[in-house]
């Protein structure tokens, strides 16, 4: 997942002008990029059920050499851009753009998947409850309509029926989370489309448990780079963080409450000596399997094979496959 903080493009500026016509008194904001919400999520330790053996073990991935051929046929990733573009007497006006795409590998080169075009969606996030009614646009301006800018209300009531406070930070966070959900949605829709065709194993940047169809597909493999939630605790955490290059943990089952159950394991992609404990550490998610150990060994070899070429200069190059970086660069170019 990539978060871009680049300045407004021509379409955004046109949409902003149109919005200012409909919402007199609005003040534009320069350079109002918003940080992703993940930084505010608290780090967690969570338990998981081991399905390979009875206790968490460290396993060296067998038969991996530099000649190992990766089985992945494609890569999926999504991006999002969130910008505070204006405020109306303090009420935040946020523009969000999400994009997702699948890049398939043909003759060792990556090209865009032809069956499902990449998705790019732009929306405006407004706390309508705290704003005056939007005026009708007079004259020929149809820029908002032509730019496919949909308006999302960030001031709706939650499950308990409570409305968010008028604090700009709360409304801004609501907008950001809404953009996150949009990105998850477009990524999931593409992943589902891929799994429906079941052409080849798909490397998904992130987890696969959100969508039932994806979580149950043998051709979807999720690779998670961030570890805000660490499974296991106590000495088992030490085993996870002490993995050496080319080692994995036993397979365990991840069953989030609101998501689908998948198999998972930790895998160290690069030698972490002299680095922090998370250096080169990824968690892999696959669908349930009758032979989890064999599946873990096979997929681990593929993931390790994707460590070249390096995805530098991206700062996450220790965990990021080059195909994922290619996806992000592609989405950056089109969104």
């Amino acid at each position, binding site marked *: 997942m990539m978060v871009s903080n680049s300045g407004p493009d021509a379409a955004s500026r046109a949409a902003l002008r149109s919005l200012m016509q409909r919402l007199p008194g609005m003040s534009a904001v320069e350079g109002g990029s918003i940080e992703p919400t993940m930084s505010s999520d608290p780090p967690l330790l969570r338990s998981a059920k081991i399905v390979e053996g009875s206790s968490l073990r460290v396993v060296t991935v067998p038969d991996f050499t*530099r*000649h190992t*051929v*990766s089985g*992945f046929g494609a890569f999926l990733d999504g991006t999002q851009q969130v910008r505070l573009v204006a405020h109306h007497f303090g009420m935040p006006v946020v523009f969000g753009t999400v994009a997702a795409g699948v890049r398939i*590998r043909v003759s*060792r*080169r*990556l090209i865009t998947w032809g069956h499902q075009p990449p998705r790019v969606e732009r929306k405006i996030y407004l706390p309508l409850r705290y704003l005056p009614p939007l005026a009708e646009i007079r004259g020929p301006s149809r820029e908002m309509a032509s730019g496919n800018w949909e308006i999302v209300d960030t001031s709706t009531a939650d499950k308990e029926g409570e409305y968010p406070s008028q604090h700009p930070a709360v409304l801004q966070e609501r907008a950001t989370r809404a953009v996150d959900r949009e990105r998850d949605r477009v990524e999931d829709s593409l992943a589902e489309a891929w799994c429906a065709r079941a052409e080849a194993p798909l490397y998904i940047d992130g987890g696969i448990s959100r969508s039932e169809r994806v979580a149950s597909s043998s051709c979807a493999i999720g690779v998670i780079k961030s570890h805000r939630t660490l499974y296991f605790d106590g000495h088992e955490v030490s085993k996870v963080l002490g993995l050496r290059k080319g080692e994995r943990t036993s397979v365990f089952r991840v069953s989030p409450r609101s998501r689908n159950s998948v198999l998972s394991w930790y895998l160290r992609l690069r030698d972490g000596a002299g680095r922090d404990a998370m250096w080169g550490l990824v968690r892999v998610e696959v669908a349930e399997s009758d032979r989890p150990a064999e599946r873990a060994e096979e997929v681990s070899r593929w993931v390790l*094979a*994707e*460590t*070249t*070429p*390096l995805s*530098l*200069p991206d700062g996450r190059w220790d965990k990021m496959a*080059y*195909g994922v*970086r*290619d996806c992000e*660069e592609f989405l950056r170019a089109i969104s």
Partner: protein
Amino acid sequence: MSEALGRVVATERKPNTPHEFHFWTAIDSPVGIGTIVRVDGAQPIEGQIPHIYGIVVEGFSYTDLQSPMHDVLGHDGSPTAAGFASTERAEIRLYTAAVLRQIPEEPLQPVPMGQVFLAEEEDVQVALRMDSYLRDGANTGIPIGVYRAGGTDAVIYLDADFLLGPEAAHLNITGVSGLATKTSAVEWLLASLFKHFPDEKGSIAAVCFNVKGPDLCYLDQPGKIEGSDEILYEKLGVEPRPFESVEYFAPYTAKGLVLNTFRNNEALLDNVTPLTWGLREVLQFAEVLLNKDDVDAKADALIDFIKENIVDREFSDPLLQKKHTVQSFADLDAWFRDVLQGMEKKDGDSWRTHHVATIRKVRNRLSNISTRCAGLVTDTGNVSDLPFGSFADRTVYVVDVANLEEDAQDLIFARIVSKLREHLERRDLGVKHLVVFVDELNKYAPGDGPDTYVRKMLLDIAERGRYLGLVLFGAQQFRSQVHRRVVGNSGTGLFGRMDPDELSTPGYAVLSPATRTKLATLEKGQLMIRHPHFTQPIFVRFPRPAVMQGREGSERYPQSSEISLEAAILRVLRPLDSTITLPWVQEITALYTPDEVIRARNATLLARPENVKAYFAAQFRKVIPAQPAQRPMVGSIKSAPENDPYGF
């Protein structure tokens, strides 16, 4: 319509201009340096979609790799491991193209974003503005070669009005030696000119000075061409045949027995004519042979006096013992001898204001000419020359000076070009347009060094020849060393494979580094062309000339070495009369000196009489057959003289 092969891109750092643009292509696209492309703009300008034609002058390739070190790290320092990576890095082919033409031409704007297409044959014609002279009614296109790129084969035409005048004229060829580029290109271009030069523009011929090697000596003999060349010939509309009409001219060797040319094999002598000049022809161009250190104002005045009052006139003077009619170097030497003897008798220092030292000096220098140019200059005054006044259409006249001394080469060049110019001015040369091909312009028209007569002549042709129909096709290895006004006046430039040192000279700074590199690695049969209609240089292929190459010719028709006097006479007379035999020649010439025999041969060749035998025999003075002299009767001394000091 073909598929787009690229897209125009522009960034703030690399913006497009009205003269240059950038585009990217797929990695496997057939674009390369020299490829002509067409850009279709997206937005109409004044109701017309702009089309921009460009030629690729630079190419870039790079990946998303930020530092080479990242690749090293990614493959653990093992180059072989890189081949096993699952994915190739994203890679770009980015090209820079120079604009050849924009349509519409006004307003001239920076090249817009748009799709890029490979130029097809019609696009090439428009891009190079060839449509203006290939349209119905114009038809002045002269095929020079085929432009090839990505399956497009387009004939490239030069505009005859800009190659042979009157608009622009002259052609200059540069290339390293040994790749047969320069000579081959000229041979091919002459064949194309003779085939395609429009009839309504009049007749055309060529005079080629063969200054080195045998390459121009077999233009009438068929050469080997390959299948690929035949395809090119067909595409270019020229029959792969040697020249139908070629005339060779060469002086004799110093001994005067055989012609001093690579083409003196008996089997090829039927269209080889001796080139011999007498005193009159040489004196007109005395300054070519006499440098300014030799000839001061006083000597110059005496030479003028001789030219005006002595040569071809009956001259008498009280100082002289007899009347003189000077028609040859021998006559002139006799005249000098008479003058000097007369001055000695009178014990005078000067004659007719000319000091005796000046007279001796001029005698020395002029007499020396016949020695320095032996074989070309005859003592007798016999002249055998190019057919000035009766030049034939589509004929090549080759003057072989390859084996001559530098002085003789200069003299031949200066006189022939002067005569050509005179006749063209009078419109009585026989043809309306004449191409003069001179190789080694480095030597004959150098950018530095003394201001020689030959260089002045070449400058004159380059600057004023086109008004007369006299066109210079010059060639050299180092263009940078040729006089700027000679190359600068050449409307058309051809470049074969170039020497890298030459390419580093300022004259090539206008070319992109990629174009210069391509020039340094051109294959045989490839040329880069500059022509007034083309706003950028174009790369073309031309076919191998359908004439015998010098090396093959010299192997098949070996050069004759010096032969006996009788054999030499037989060799030149037999083509005139096939009944002449060696015994007959031996019988006729037995009593005469070699000079007399050669004089008779030259006279016969010049006259080309019907009865060759009789004419040749009549050239010899009557010689009474030798009879044994009777021993004179010696009488005995009857008595010794009285005052005999030795008497006893």
